Each structure stands twice: as C-alpha cells, then as structure tokens.
C-alpha cells in the first residue's frame, strides 16, 4: 500500500514537472501574451507586474515632440538599487508593450532604443527590483507628417 502510494506520488510529481516545463521554456523565449496584449494593463498583467508604485528614480529621456513617429529615441535609466528588469510600454500603440529587458550580474539597468509611435502617448516604464515593481511615465507628442498636432 505504502509502495503504491509512493509511486503514485512520484508519478504525480513528474506530471507536475512536465506541465511546468513548457511554461519555463516560454518565459525564457518571447512572452507572446504580453506582447499581443492590446492595453497596457493587460500587458503588465501578462508580464506579472501589475500594481507598480510611482517612482522618481526611473529616468526617461525622450523628445517632448517627435516629428517622426517611426523613430522616437527613448532612453531609460533606473536608479533603484537592484533593478533586475525594465519594461517599456507605449500606452497608445495598438500593442503597447515595446520591449522588456532583464539585467544580470553587472549589467547597468539602462537602455536606449528607438521605437515607433502611432500617435501622441505616454511612454511608461516599469522596473522590477527586490520583487517589487516601480513605474514612471513621460508624454511624447507625435507630429505625423509634420502637419501640426
């Protein structure tokens, strides 16, 4: 009876591991759910970082007015000690999540990247440090085709 129970338990454990494995592989790859989310809230939920608190220690450098929405330079620095990752969301883009970076052993939580913006929008950054989430946002106005706006 005991032997049977042990076997059953072991089988259940193996099954649980097998069920977990593909999830882990996905996490290391590309978070399809987060990138295909159509609202910033859904994207953050898919990334597992809802409920971030505002922080002045996340610096976002971006043009106030971008004449060309196809190339908008965004520079992000986190001064929060132990920052492990940064997610960049363009709130009004059809798919808000633009990028997500994980920083390991010695990498500075800093990144500069050019993004596409469909219209004027807040650019939001969510940082993870010590298991907590922090956020800051900055508005960028986009002048499409240079005809005002």
């Amino acid at each position: 009876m005991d032997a049977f129970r042990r076997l059953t338990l072991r089988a259940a454990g193996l099954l649980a591991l097998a069920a977990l494995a593909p999830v882990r592989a996905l996490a290391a790859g590309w978070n399809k759910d987060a990138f295909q989310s159509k609202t910033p809230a859904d994207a953050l939920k898919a990334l597992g970082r809802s409920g971030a608190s505002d922080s002045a220690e996340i610096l976002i450098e971006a043009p106030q007015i971008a004449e060309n929405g196809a190339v908008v330079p965004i520079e992000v620095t986190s001064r929060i000690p132990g920052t492990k990752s940064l997610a960049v969301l363009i709130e009004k883009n059809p798919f808000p999540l633009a990028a997500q970076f994980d920083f390991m052993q010695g990498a500075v939580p800093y990144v500069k990247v050019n993004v596409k913006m469909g219209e004027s929008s807040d650019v939001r950054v969510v940082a993870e440090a010590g298991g907590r989430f922090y956020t800051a946002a900055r508005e960028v106005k986009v002048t499409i085709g240079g005809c005002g706006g």
Partner: protein
Amino acid sequence: MAAGPMKMRATLKGDVADVRVLMSHPMETGQRKDGAGKPIPMHFIQNVTVSLNGKPVIEGQISQAVSRNPVFSFRVKGAKAGDKLEVSWLDNKGEQNKTETALA
C-alpha cells in the same frame, strides 16, 4: 528588405562598457501594405542578448514597435580591456545574427 549585417561599437569608461549596436532589420509590423495593397507579413526581431565573455548579461524581448534597423545602447559594469562582448538577435522567422568585439 532582408535582415543584414550588424555594427557594434563598445568603449570602456572606467569599468563600464558603453555598447552601441546597430542591427539591419526591416522590423515589419504586419500593418503596412505593399504596392498591390496586400499586407506585408510581420517580420521583426524578438530576442536580443548581450553577453560578456560568453555569459549573458542583458536579455531583451522586443516587439514590432522597435524602429526599422534597430539601434540599442547598453551599459555593462565590471568590464575590462580584452573582454569579449557579443550581441545577438533572433527574429520571428528564426533568422538570427550576432557580432562580437574585444573591449579596448
């Protein structure tokens, strides 16, 4: 436009390596149409990895919202002259490329 070569420049300032990398890639969003009005399929980089001496230090996941021919800047602390820095990418069609440089 097909994916093309990469360019990287890395400069040491103290023990921090300033890395600037350019990737030639169309970064198609799937929302544009060709001359005949047919939608151009999505084609974009999804993963970007920065490694120092073979160890990944920055792992990025990106979307089609990153501009065509992406340019990134990264900073890696604890680097020294002679260290090997590698940046690689992988796109949604399984195409990939990488470039490496020795820090000076």
